[in-house]
């Protein structure tokens, strides 16, 4: 097998439509910013560079090392990509990697791709770069230590986000999915941390001009320190809280309006026979009617276009 999947890719069908759409919106906002930032700061030369770097992350995920009992550690790459390429370019590279994994290998779904990009591409890059940027003037030892921590936390962030999305979709139970996902990924994250640290150490030693002071990756805004720090802090604080007190998190979700208070459990977020968030009301019936009209209208437009187009 050429390609070994990382167990964070959510397939289609496991997230509800509304959770998928919320994740897509967040992802599109961040990627849109990333594209406009990279367009401003980088020349046409950067596009081939980012493309080959995306292929590099993809290929680097095939490098593994045996751990014990037939299991092996390998790289996810989000933190490494952001550290060596800068945060925005790193995010675009990870987006391309996850998109190709979903399109070509069905590793991760299409509708849930927004969530997968958010979990494995954007959150990982933000933590990886933010923490690394915080120690930019420090010694190599400090840099590498922080890189290891950042890489580990980035995997934990991905696992936490995945768990929360599965829970909000009513696919998994919070008090089971968080400890299970976080427990497994605490170990997977160690492999990620080790490979990232040694890879970065190797690059710092052989080509310090690429990642050292004055390079593209060192130019990232200081705001990343706060963004990455904040995401890391959420992971550190939220995961123990969520595993120890899942009811507390449900309480928060209810207060934030995610969960209809009249229902006893979170898996009812998506009521079965109505449009999400609207409930079994007249509004829902109207919305369903509107969707029907849009679909029929679309079909008419397509047939009309078909008649006009040359065969």
């Amino acid at each position, binding site marked *: 097998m*050429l390609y070994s999947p990382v*167990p964070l890719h959510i*397939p*289609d*069908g*496991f*997230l*509800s*439509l509304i959770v*998928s759409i919320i994740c897509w919106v967040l992802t599109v906002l961040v990627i849109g910013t990333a*594209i406009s930032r990279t367009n401003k700061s980088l020349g*046409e030369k950067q*596009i*081939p*560079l980012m*493309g*080959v*770097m*995306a*292929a*590099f992350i993809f290929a*680097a995920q*095939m*490098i593994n*090392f045996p*751990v014990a009992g037939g299991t092996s550690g390998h*790289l996810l790459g989000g933190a490494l990509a952001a550290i*060596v390429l800068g945060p925005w370019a790193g995010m675009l*590279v990870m*987006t391309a990697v996850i*998109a190709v994994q979903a399109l*070509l*290998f*069905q590793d991760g*779904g*299409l*509708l849930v791709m927004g969530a997968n990009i958010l979990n494995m591409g954007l959150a990982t890059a933000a933590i990886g770069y933010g923490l690394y940027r915080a120690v930019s003037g420090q010694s190599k030892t400090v840099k590498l230590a922080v890189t290891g921590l950042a890489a580990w936390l980035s995997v934990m962030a991905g696992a936490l986000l995945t768990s929360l999305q599965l829970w909000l979709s009513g*696919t*998994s139970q919070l008090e089971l*999915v968080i400890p299970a996902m976080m427990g497994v990924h605490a170990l997977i994250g160690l492999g990620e941390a*080790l*490979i990232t640290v*040694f*890879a970065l*150490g*190797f690059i710092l030693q052989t*080509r310090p001009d690429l990642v050292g002071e004055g390079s593209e990756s060192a130019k990232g805004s200081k705001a990343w320190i706060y963004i990455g720090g904040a995401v890391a802090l959420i992971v550190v604080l939220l995961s123990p809280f969520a595993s120890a007190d899942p009811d507390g998190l449900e309480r928060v979700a209810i207060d934030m309006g995610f969960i209809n208070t009249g229902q006893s*459990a979170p898996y009812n977020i998506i009521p*079965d*026979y109505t449009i999400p968030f609207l409930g079994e009301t007249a509004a829902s019936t109207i919305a369903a009617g509107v969707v029907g009209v849009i*679909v*029929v209208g*679309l*079909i008419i437009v*397509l*047939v009309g276009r*078909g*008649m006009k*187009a040359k*065969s």
Partner: protein
Amino acid sequence: MHFDAFDRYHEKESFLHRLDPRVKVLVTVVFIISNALLPDGAWLAFGFAWLFVLVNNLLSKLGIGYTLKRSIIALPFALIAITVLFSIPGKPLTTFNFMMMDLTITDMGLLRFVSILIRSWLSVQMAILLVAVTRFPDLIHALEHLRIPAVLTTIIAFLYRYLFVLTDEVFRLLRAREARSAAVPGSRSGGGVVWRAKVAGNMAGQLFLRSYERSDRIYNAMVARGYAGHLYTLNPHEMRSADYYATALAIAIIFVTHLLGRF
């Protein structure tokens, strides 16, 4: 390694192969959205959706069971949904003891679990069929036509173009590690886990440098051949009337199937 080592495209002369890639992407996405919105236990709609997949398999001339054979890929992830078996209130079906916890499978839980698996299984089959009847470069162009930003589609195009080159590079690195990992029978070669991780990390760093330097050469070569920031294609990708009719028909079928699941 051959340049299309990763492509899942299967060359055939069929209606689906000739269809405009945009149409195929759009119909696949609509099908998956419709699946995601189907309520739990909409067996009739699930059945018709599968029929839709089977008919498409036939239309592609890849054989009726083509996607079925490849669709187990999403199964490992099913483990994560297993908790719904016990967590949704409903009529108890069976109780068993697992790690000192009494777990009761309810009928509603079973219904939801099976529905999640079916939705996922149907969606993954359409995605498999999409890449089996569409060349990957055509797929990228379809995405560009569907307003995915050019920066992203170009990165994806490069990723696809150089993935096999870098995979060859990875195989060389792996072979080199293998060749240096000889051991006397009965004793282990090399150090502990951290040492092995260091070797893997150095390999990743090495791969990074080789990729970085290669991207420089690639860019220079492209500029030498007139690259000015945009990739061109000789394939016109024009929508013909058959493409429009096929889209309309497919969306109508998916819509009716969806309605069957709601009433």
